[in-house]
């Protein structure tokens, strides 16, 4: 995971605070896991992400095992184990063997193992590689499906991640996808334009739709100070009901159809399929890669991105330094909305080719977990999007083959994020917590801050 800006930043913080080991370790975790310190950034220095935990002996091995990369892997492992236990707990064979658990415990244990692994193998086969397929094309079909489903997750996840970096909680990807879907779909089926131009206009319409819906939240936040979490949640519902209303109007409802469904988009308005018509994978995936590069460049190489990160790290300091915080808030929400808008376009112009009230599915909410798992870095989000895309794609096969409900994916997904957000918990479970020196001086540096704050 590329994270260029962190180490320097971390080291600056780490030195002056080295005495307050115990208190700071926990505080540091908070800083990282508020995704750029959205709530109270100034109070907590960010140290944890480097994996260099103050107080622990700095052996290479310990560094590797307490670093955030390993914590992420362990978190995924732990979530899979718990998910497996849940699968096993409802498995019939496990239930029967538990009847004679004490007589033959091996039966029970093997039943547990089988129940869990069978589901996970089906999950893998449904998402990456299916060895039973005839020919490579069929064998890799699941992977293509994974990439298709990952596409909207990645772009919406990038939107959420970008907002996180600027200290904003964008829970509103769902609504932004819907608004983008509405505009893009309308351009797609109501206008009839030549090849190329039509698709471009669909994409632009979607991006603009998402950007406006996101930017509106930014504007309200900047002007009135309303909390963006509440605003975005409410905006999600407003967008959903607006879509449901539109789908019952003659302008959007397919002629001769009583169900709320739009006409099919023109062939000139849909994304071309990358590897031919046998896979659903479409141009949107390439655009998602491009968006990832763009966000990386924006965050790490551009002035605007620097301002976003500065506002995210400490809005007051950013204001003092002459950054226009209001402008940054509006802009970052607009860009986040535009990215989510790309997901909306991927849905209507790529995967579904029509507009229904399920256009956003749960991609907007999944995007939050994707961004959190990706630790709000562009490529981390990309990888997390692929992983969750694989879960989604594989879950369908898993349900067909083993009868394990798709919902298990939600469980594993949310457990992963919970564990990743609490590295000390994961380290404690695997016994990797760094040994601490006696926190004798721990309180002193914090004490000043406390009394200062109270005065």
């Amino acid at each position: 995971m590329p994270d260029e800006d962190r180490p320097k930043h971390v080291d600056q913080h780490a030195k002056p605070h080295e005495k307050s080991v115990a208190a700071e370790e926990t505080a540091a975790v908070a800083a990282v896991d508020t995704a750029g310190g959205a709530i109270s950034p100034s109070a907590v220095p960010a140290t944890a992400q480097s994996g260099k935990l103050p107080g622990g002996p700095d052996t290479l091995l310990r560094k590797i095992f307490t670093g955030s990369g390993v914590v992420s892997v362990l978190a995924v492992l732990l979530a899979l184990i718990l998910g497996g236990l849940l699968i096993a707990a409802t498995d019939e064979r496990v239930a029967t063997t538990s009847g004679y658990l004490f007589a033959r415990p091996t039966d029970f244990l093997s039943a547990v193992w089988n129940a869990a692994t069978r589901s996970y193998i089906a999950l893998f086969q449904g998402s990456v590689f299916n060895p039973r397929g005839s020919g490579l094309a069929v064998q890799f079909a699941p992977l293509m499906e994974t990439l298709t489903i990952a596409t909207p997750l990645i772009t919406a996840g990038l939107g959420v991640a970008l907002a996180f970096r600027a200290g904003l909680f964008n829970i509103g990807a769902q609504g932004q996808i819907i608004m983008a879907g509405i505009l893009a779909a309308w351009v797609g089926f109501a206008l009839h334009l030549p090849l190329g131009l039509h698709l471009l206009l669909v994409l632009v319409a979607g991006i603009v739709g998402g950007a406006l819906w996101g930017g509106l939240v930014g504007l309200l936040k900047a002007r009135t100070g309303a909390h963006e979490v509440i605003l975005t949640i409410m905006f999600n519902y407003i967008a959903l009901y607006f879509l449901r209303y539109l789908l019952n109007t003659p302008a959007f409802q397919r002629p001769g159809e009583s169900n709320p469904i739009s006409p099919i988009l023109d062939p000139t308005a849909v994304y071309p399929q990358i590897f031919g018509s046998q896979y659903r994978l479409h141009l949107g995936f390439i655009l998602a890669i491009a968006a990832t590069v763009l966000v990386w460049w924006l965050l790490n190489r551009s002035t605007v991105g620097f301002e976003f990160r500065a506002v995210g790290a400490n809005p007051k300091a950013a204001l003092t330094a002459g950054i226009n915080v209001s402008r940054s808030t509006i802009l970052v929400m607009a860009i986040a909305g535009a990215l989510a808008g790309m997901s909306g376009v991927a849905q209507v112009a790529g995967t579904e080719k029509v507009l229904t009230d399920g256009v956003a599915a749960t991609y907007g909410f999944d995007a939050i977990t994707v961004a959190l798992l990706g630790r709000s870095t562009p490529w981390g989000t990309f990888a997390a999007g692929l992983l969750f895309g694989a879960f989604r794609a594989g879950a369908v096969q898993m349900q067909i083959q083993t009868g394990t409900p798709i919902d298990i994916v939600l469980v594993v997904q949310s457990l992963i994020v919970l564990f990743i957000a609490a590295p000390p918990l994961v380290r404690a479970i695997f016994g990797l917590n760094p040994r601490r020196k006696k926190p004798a001086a721990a309180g002193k540096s914090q004490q000043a801050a406390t009394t200062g704050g109270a005065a």
Partner: protein
Amino acid sequence: MSATATSPLPGRGSPGTAPETGKIQAASGKPVLWKTPVVLSALGIVAFVFFGLMGSGQTAKFGISTGGDFFQLPALEIPAMAGGIVLSVLMLGLAAYAVYLKTQNRPAPAWLTITFTVLFVAAFLIWVVGGARTPSISLAGLIAGSVTLAVPLVFGSLSGVLCERVGVVNIAIEGQLLGGAFTAAIVASITQSPFVGLLAAAVAGAAVSMVLAVFSIKYLVNQIIVGVVLNVLVSGVTGFLFSTVMQENKARFNSPPGLDIVEIPVLSGIPIIGPILFKQSVVGYLMYVAVIVVWVGLFKTKWGLRVRAVGEHPQAADTMGIKVNATRFWNVTLGGAIAGIGGSFFTLVAIDSFTKEISGGRGFIALAALIFGRWNPIGAFFAALLFGFADNLQSIVTIIGTPVPSQFMAMLPYLVTVLAVAGLVGRSRPPAASGIPYVKG
């Protein structure tokens, strides 16, 4: 982070010069903004044009008594257009008074906005019903139905109040409701006792809340993240168990005995008030009790003072010897238990079995109600009632056929909340330390 103050003029209205509303806000020294008068005037004009001038010529009929009442009141009949004009003129009068107050540099008092809201809702109702194909609804049914729909919302928002007052943002209300609904269904089915189910729902809600508490207080994970993720987790776990356990053996695991409606004799016969207060399920009565207990607890007891201190200024509370994190932990747990009871309403009272996502986003409406009610149990109660009212009206207008698409009615609570948090209708301020983890220094 409010960046632009529209008029940085400090309010110099001294308390002495304000005759009857002097004690409201004049002494606070905050500048009186144009926002409220302007918004009220705009809404008044909208009401005048749409509900008045463009109102229909029909007569809106509101039935007040139901067959079961022990005395009958005649139905209320209001000519739609005249009613709309009268009410909107009254609204414009209130708006003009707000403008006058502003010119005197005094803020609009609370009663003014509340009266305005009531008038607006009434005018809206007359307009909606007057424009319908069959311009007649039962007011008693409408209000009683609103209360029923509001029950889970009230419990949810009380959970939010308890959590936020102590400084923990509770986005997981949805998860707590869902967890409560699921557990109530499964436990009541197995034990064949709805009361055991009710208890189990409280435990389940508390369990969800404890995860929120542990992660946000012990591990200092951002509270909003934990909340969002918990909603997904509970949705996943209940969905998974529903598909594997409940659907395999519906008779054994998903057919909970319901909680019956308990009618209090005589009193339940009073028109309008009777069905609301004296014709409820156990959960419904518990709702009234919970609202009062939480309000008294928070604002009239030592415990409540401590809780609010922790939510407003944890350092100060800590200095005074209050255990900040323990208070937070137990309050959040208590909140979860209350939301869990609210969740049991779905499976024990409203519907007699559990289905996936049975809470259907009501946790988020509860969150909205809590904000709209300004972090106050009573306020949250009335906000939840208003949202229940909108929800109920939405299903009624689809039946009687009105000019307003039902989707817009469904959208209303969320729009109102956006207006509320954006400060267009009054100002809502969360507890100061809400969302900020406390690290003892």
